[in-house]
């Protein structure tokens, strides 16, 4: 049976080209792999290889023809004795072109005549994103004792408890084992769990992040500690391209249950390369969850949730907060839902939204504002992605005013996203533009006075609140 040879497209954008030269002539034998002709586009000259075997029966487009449309029949190949005119082609392209009935109905209607491409639906409307409903925190049983713990202890307990619970959980990173952790988060874990599960890595963030991703593809549950998230920029390709996107690219086959954790943002006087806040960066990426706790209780409950989560979770800690004390409920298994904000302090006059280290400014500002007769509601987002915007919107509907607080840079900040969401979802409730307090738009300076100026402070939050409350 004769087979049509079509003018090929060499790129997705090519529509036509020049048939420069035939390298075979009618009557020649061709086999797959033989170069039969050369064609030229605006970009390059390319060769056409035969895919099928047989005799070149007929050349329909002669040498030097310009403007040959993609998918035009340029020649026919077939068995000896076949006539050129014989109706060809079990070829799928031809089939699609000539028998549109074989492709899905909507497709044939939607497909342009020269593109034999069935389309499921000629849809110009994008289906709506599914709504994400955040779970509520679990009830803490009445009579539960609380004990004061540092964030550092809470994080360590979370890892230890999860490692006891599940042998698939392991910790890897720089200085996590024998050194007992650069910031002592993993202190004691090597003694309890041994070198198989608490693994010192060389200083190769890109490489060990990738090894963690591979281990997670295989079903283990790695906790990858970065000494700081500043160093994770070396690994960000593995985090985003491999960990975050693979579930989608695999049509749901390849989950990546991994936690990337470590201190994020500015510590003190460590200069520009060690002081960056990545909340907004990772918060942009579909396929990631991004958690940034403030209190020890949240650090514990959310890290346990992150380790159990079947998705890649970015867990942003803060070196300064590691030593802060908070009350943590004494429960055997305290797990909090990722994606749920917490109302840290209820109030009626203004909503202050923050997370992580930013909460230290927000909380102090709220205390001082109370003395000035302004009753602020303070929301701790806790999770940057998926963001519990509903809690924020409900608060703003009550207060009519909002100020966001974070240490990261202003452009494309978490506060910018919150401001967008508020104007889109609570526009009629707003009594003032949304205020946004961020780190200054500069690399972090080293000098003590300049660093202080570059970071947000309580006074700025108070000023912003006074501005939106017109007081």
């Amino acid at each position, binding site marked *: 049976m004769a087979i049509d040879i079509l003018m090929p497209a060499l790129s997705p954008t090519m529509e036509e080209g020049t048939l420069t030269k035939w390298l075979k002539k009618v009557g020649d034998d061709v086999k797959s792999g033989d170069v039969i002709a050369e064609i030229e586009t605006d970009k390059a000259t390319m060769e056409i290889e035969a895919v099928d075997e047989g005799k070149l029966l007929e050349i329909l487009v002669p040498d030097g023809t310009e403007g040959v449309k993609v998918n035009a029949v340029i020649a026919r190949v077939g068995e000896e004795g076949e006539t050129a005119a014989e109706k060809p082609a079990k070829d799928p*392209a031809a089939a*699609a072109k000539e028998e549109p009935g074989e492709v899905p109905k909507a497709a044939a209607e939607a497909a342009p005549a020269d593109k034999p491409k069935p389309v*499921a639906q000629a849809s110009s409307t994008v289906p709506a994103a599914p709504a994400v409903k955040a779970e509520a925190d679990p009830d803490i049983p009445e009579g539960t004792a609380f004990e004061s713990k540092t964030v550092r202890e809470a994080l360590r307990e979370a890892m230890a408890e999860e490692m006891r619970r599940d042998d698939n959980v392991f910790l890897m990173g720089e200085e996590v084992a024998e050194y007992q952790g650069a910031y002592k988060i993993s202190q004691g874990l090597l003694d309890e769990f041994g070198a198989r599960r608490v693994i010192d890595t060389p200083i190769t963030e890109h490489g060990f992040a*990738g090894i963690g991703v*591979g281990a997670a593809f295989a079903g283990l549950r790695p906790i990858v500690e970065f000494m700081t998230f500043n160093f994770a920029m070396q690994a960000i390709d593995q985090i985003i391209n491999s960990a975050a996107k693979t579930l989608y690219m695999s049509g749901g086959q*390849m989950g990546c249950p991994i936690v990337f954790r470590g201190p994020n943002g500015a510590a003190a006087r460590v200069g520009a390369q060690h002081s960056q806040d990545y909340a907004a960066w990772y918060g942009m990426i579909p396929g990631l969850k991004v958690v940034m706790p403030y209190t020890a209780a949240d650090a514990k409950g959310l890290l346990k949730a992150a380790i159990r989560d079947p998705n890649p979770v970015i867990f942003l800690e803060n070196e300064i907060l590691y030593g802060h004390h908070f009350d943590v409920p004494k429960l055997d298994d305290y797990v909090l839902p990722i994606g749920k904000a917490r109302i840290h302090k209820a109030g009626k006059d203004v909503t202050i939204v923050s997370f992580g280290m930013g909460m230290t400014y927000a909380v102090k500002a709220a205390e001082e504002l109370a003395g000035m007769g302004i009753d602020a509601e303070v929301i701790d987002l806790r999770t940057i992605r998926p963001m519990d915007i509903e809690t924020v919107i409900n608060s703003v509907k009550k207060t009519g005013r909002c100020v966001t607080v974070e240490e990261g840079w202003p452009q494309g900040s978490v506060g910018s996203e919150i401001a967008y969401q508020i104007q889109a979802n609570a526009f009629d409730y707003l009594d003032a533009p949304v205020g946004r307090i961020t780190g200054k738009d500069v690399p972090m300076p080293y000098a003590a006075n300049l660093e202080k100026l570059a970071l947000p402070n309580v006074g700025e939050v108070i000023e912003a609140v006074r501005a939106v409350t017109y007081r």
Partner: protein
Amino acid sequence: MAVRPATEKRSRASAAPSRTQKSGKSANPAVNYQVAEFDKDDELKAYHDMLLIRRFEEKAGQLYGMGLIGGFCHLYIGQEAVVVGIQKALRDGEDQVTTSYRDHGHMLACGMDPKGVMAELTGRQGGYSRGKGGSMHMFSREKQFFGGHGIVGAQVPIGAGLAFADKYRGTDNVSVVYFGDGAANQGQVYETFNMAELWKLPVIFVIENNRYAMGTSVSRSSAQTDFAKRGESFNIRGEQVDGMDVRAVKAAADRAVEWARSGNGPYILEMQTYRYRGHSMSDPAKYRSKDEVQKMRDERDPIEQVRKRLVEKGWASEDDLKEIDKQVRAVVTEAADFASADAEPDPSELWTDILR
């Protein structure tokens, strides 16, 4: 660097390479060009499996030309002996395989369904990733194929991570990670070499040296063009292998797999191979001469080598081989028909598989 000669006679003639075995802690044993003994069934299967990849890729090229496949499409034509030879040394469904974006051949060699692979190329719902991955991103848990990665070199630590999991769980599975001569210059490859040897991970690094990283030849991009030596400073053994001879590939893979499975850690195999087509469909490959390509096709073709042996040994007649070709073509045509007629993914798929 010249790809080593392929015929049995010439392979043996080159069995005394310039490099000699070093004593003590040297990473590399003497280069070994011996070929595996293939009986009739081995040869017939290798012929069939390589031909399936060749015909599949030719068809993919054709569908690309017709606009049915979009974006990038990297064909594996010429390199078939590498994946077919390696896969013969693996335990199907247990040992893991990871590779780059030139991945169709690897998937077929792993036993993945040509229909599912082709339908992914055309972006249809019946594709392995339901049309959401494309030519560069497919996976199969069942066949232990872990992609399909689009960032040059990124699959290398991932493959080592799979080996980490094998070791962590106490299995004797091995992980094979393929990458090209171009990727072999990426930093994360060496980070991975270091940890793989440090932790004795059961991973086999297969460097498919097809001589060109897109349009840049090995000699223009690599200070050390002997890729088998790239693990030397980590004490990882490496071998250069005639990647156009499926029997040489199999023999080398057997050694590497045995090494890794026995708990000795990683192993590097530099497969000296050649890609006939451009880097991707839109690459006219002006950086090499037509003669160079034609010479490879004429003298070194991996499929032709097997075909010749089959005929010479009387293990298959021309008619038998035609019959195999017919069967393979039928499978490929079926895959193409399916991939052309299958529907695109439902619009609701836009929002699925982002999180679990």
